[in-house]
């Protein structure tokens, strides 16, 4: 499963570790900071799978793989539900 950012998102960066997202269709705003902001930046570089995101987070933050995977799966679910990212097979 690959995650990619949808085209309906407008991004603003108050600082290196915070992103503000506007979903253009719904007009809803979202804020990500810390790990969430890092994950978003990684997705901006290109579509990523869950394991790639876990590795990317572990390179920056000191976190065990297993809880990190669970947390990222939750985050990806939330971002998908808000139509900020979409999941594709490849």
């Amino acid at each position: 499963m690959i995650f990619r950012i949808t085209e309906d998102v407008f991004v603003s960066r108050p600082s290196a570790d915070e992103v503000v997202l506007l979903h253009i269709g719904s007009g809803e705003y979202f804020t990500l900071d810390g790990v969430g902001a890092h994950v978003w930046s990684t997705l901006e570089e290109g579509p990523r799978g869950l394991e790639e995101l876990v590795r990317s987070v572990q390179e920056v933050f000191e976190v065990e793989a297993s809880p990190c995977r669970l947390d990222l799966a939750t985050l990806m679910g939330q971002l998908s539900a808000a139509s900020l990212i979409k999941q594709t097979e490849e």
Partner: protein
Amino acid sequence: MMSVHPLETAEGALLMECLKPPARQDPARLSSLADAPGLRPELALQRAAEHGAAGFMQRALRQVPGAGPVSLREGIDAMATLVRMRNMKLATDLGEVMGALQGAGVRALTFKGPTTSLQLHGDVGIRPSNDLDVLVPPDALNEAMRLVTGLGFRRDPKFDLRDMEPNLAHHIAYLRGGTTLEVHVRLFSNAGFANESFDVLWPGRRPCTIPGGPVATLDVGRQALHLALHGSWHGFGCLKWLADIGALLNDSAEISWTDLLEDAEHSEWRRPLLLALHLASEALELPLSPAVEERVTADKRFLDRKASTCVRRWFPEEAPVDRRTLEGVFFRLGLLESANVLRELKRLLFRPNSADWNMLPFLSPRTPVVFSIIRPLRIVFRYTGAAAQLAWRRLFPKSTPS
């Protein structure tokens, strides 16, 4: 060296440091200013709001975590969040408008607004925008009006189409929800620079990506000229305009200052341009190119005097330079070359508008008597009170807060 730094107050000094381009900010100095003993957080927040500086202050203060009073940091964060959300919404609306225009084959350039924050300050949320500005060729105005109306924009009820007489008003204002859209057929209301053809501006356009895709904006030289003229025209009463000039000065690799100065000279806008550059250079401690420095030095006495007028009003008890006050009128006239003074006086005194016609409904909008009598009378009535107020302030000045 002219002293244009409003360093008498801790709030002013902090604000000015925050308005510098990030590469020019000194974290140690920022930290020291944010923790200055005399800093009044509530006044710093007020100044940030007045000058559209919350986004700039947030960006700067995040470089120095923990510095400054908590109430100041929280207040700035709250204000900056509102600025960011508003700008993102404006950018979305702009994308919709530009998409409709481009889709219909209407050439359109956007300027000021959220694209300025993106292009000059690196993020849409830094510099607040009040409205959207789109420039279209005069012969495409009707089509543009039809398209924006189709998007749900309605003409501002205060706007009268008769203001669109040649060389008078330069835009039509539309409203939709909380968004104001100005559709321009010229960049500036006055002559000279204002008369520059859309066809001259179009080839130098540069892209800016906003929601909906890339849109065309002014080339960086024209953008600099327009921002300088706009800011000078309003006496730099709002410091976000000065931060724009500072960003251009700091990253001006694309700007040919010699060409820009020649253009300004040719269109008789030399002094407003030099005032903007001089003021930004002094206040934000930014170097000028040798070509600009030379022109500034040649006209330093005049520029210092005008700059002092601007600075006096940055952190004042009195109101900023306002075009509706007598002092504001003289400030603006003083920036103009002789030929433009006459044009501006003509524009100021002999401009017809709906209020004039409403007063004398039996006259045709083109009746010369209205141009020659009604407008000057209204101006006299309006400025008599302003002149008395100004004289009173001069005679009995308020003491400067410590």
